[in-house]
């Protein structure tokens, strides 16, 4: 737990997960059935807390599962480089919409859609992927329990550690 908290307090990593990367969030219900949804923003606090913003309508089943089990796995991936990390946590909680999140979501949409367009995807497709009605985002907040390298290759799955 301490190790993961240290990692998330690394400024470079916080910048990575709060930038224009692809974010997918998974959880599972009591029957161990997995669910997954695409996120529309991330807030990485200096206190080690991570808040993932998800579109409320699209991610309702995911939010229900997190409410019940509190278990989450989030993968952050940079499309151009495939650099990817996965954060796992238990005890995650679901937060209702906060007015300050609209600006976070807007910034994320622009950054991520821009990334996809640079890779040749159509602007229409890129925006639809991350679009949501303003004020509809819900939050999933947690303290990371473990962080793994998930960049494709032989080191995929290795835990990420930092000194201190």
């Amino acid at each position, binding site marked *: 737990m301490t190790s993961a908290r240290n990692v998330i307090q690394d400024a470079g990593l916080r910048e990575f997960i709060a930038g224009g990367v692809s974010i997918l969030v*998974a959880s599972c219900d009591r029957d161990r059935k997995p669910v997954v949804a695409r996120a529309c923003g991330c807030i990485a606090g200096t206190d080690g807390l991570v808040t993932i913003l998800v579109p409320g*309508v*699209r991610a*309702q089943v995911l939010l229900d599962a997190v409410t019940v089990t509190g278990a989450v796995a989030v*993968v952050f991936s940079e499309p151009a480089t495939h650099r990817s990390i996965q954060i796992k946590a238990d005890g995650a909680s679901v937060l209702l919409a906060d007015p300050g999140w609209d600006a976070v979501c807007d910034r994320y949409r622009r950054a991520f859609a821009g990334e996809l367009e640079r890779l040749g995807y159509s602007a229409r*497709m890129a925006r639809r992927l991350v679009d949501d009605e303003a004020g509809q985002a819900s939050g999933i907040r947690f303290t990371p329990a473990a962080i793994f390298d998930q960049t*494709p290759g032989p080191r995929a799955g290795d835990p990420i550690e930092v000194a201190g």
Partner: protein
Amino acid sequence: MSVALSSIRHCLDGAIPAAIATCSADGIPNVSYVSEVHYVDLRHVALSYQFFNKTRVNVLANPAARVLVIDPNSGTQYELDVAYERTETDGPIFQSMRVKLAGIAAHTGMSTVFRLRGSDVYEVLAVRPVAGSGPVALPQAPLPGLRRLSERLVGCGDLELLIDALLDGLAEALSIGHSMLFLHDEAAGRVYLIGSRGYDLTGIGSEIPLGHGIVGIAAAERAPIRITHHAEEFRYGETIRDGDATRIPLPGLAHPGSQLAIPIVAGARLLGVLYVESTQSGAFGYDSEDMLVTLANQFAASLYLLDDEQHATSAPAATLATGTATIPLRLRYFRSNCSVFVDDDYLIKGVAGAILWKLLGEFTQSGRSQFSNRELRLDPDIGLPDVCENLEARLVLLKRRLLEKCSDIRIVPVARGKFRLDVARPVILEIAEEAGRGRARP
């Protein structure tokens, strides 16, 4: 709302990576990107297994998983409830995925990282669009073009017409401008090119061993093989320089963005391979594959119905002015592989080479120029491998090679199962000494 798996196949082609969520036996979720989701049938998909990772550990313990895919055109997301069934490490599904992954890897700059270890086959329990993620808009297959081409094939009374109708029809009815048609040489374990469109060189008579490249794999596995992005190791269009004088260069695009090879089969028997390619990435989707499999099946049935004693319905070629030139043609024959060289240029080998040598021998000894398919089939010197061997295909191959390489000799159909040999110059026939021709293959 649920949708049929078959209607979202275009979302499985890896234009945007899919994701899979799994859950461990003790309830810890995991989410991971998947390089390749392969449509197997109406109820199954196969996911690429490249690294032993948490996803794999989880599905072996708890087979329930959820896959998230994205429509590359509209951005609409679909979720698939799936259950892990088995892993395949060889066979048509694996080979098809292995080749396609090479294209995806090259496209994403991961050629040195991606290697398929297995195809994880999942049963698909449900497919749903993610609420609010976009319109459920499905692509339409170009059925009118397929129908037009299919009707064109129906009217063909001989093999040459059938070959040309297929290749011309692909370009005209389906806008597929680069195509090659190969027929199977069962005895040699190879396919040979009998017709092509869209290249500077026709490549008639060039060969591909079974199992080699996308065409050879499609032939060996009797399965369609499709690449949606450029994959350097699977492109054709490059002569292999190995000193074999009888090798005819294969045509092919220098930088294909998409490739598709469809085996032509009748029952368990391989008759040939239809290969198409495009400079564009993603030019051939699952619908193109369905269309060309349907066409290949019709072509196979048509081929089977044409017997060797067919009507000569091709437009008759003009008669050559026999024997008017004085400079003789020197033809050499190598018994070891039945290859024929005109002066020093390779012309043909194998069964077609033996046929030509037989015809020229009769022509020079007795002046005879009319022959029948039946006598060739019964001739022990030609040695057709078995009753299934398609003599007509060898005659078409020979006729086309002569047109390209030796226009002074021509084969002209004259009646049902009969043809005439026209020779415009005196010919000198030599049986070559085999010593020193180490690379000529039987």
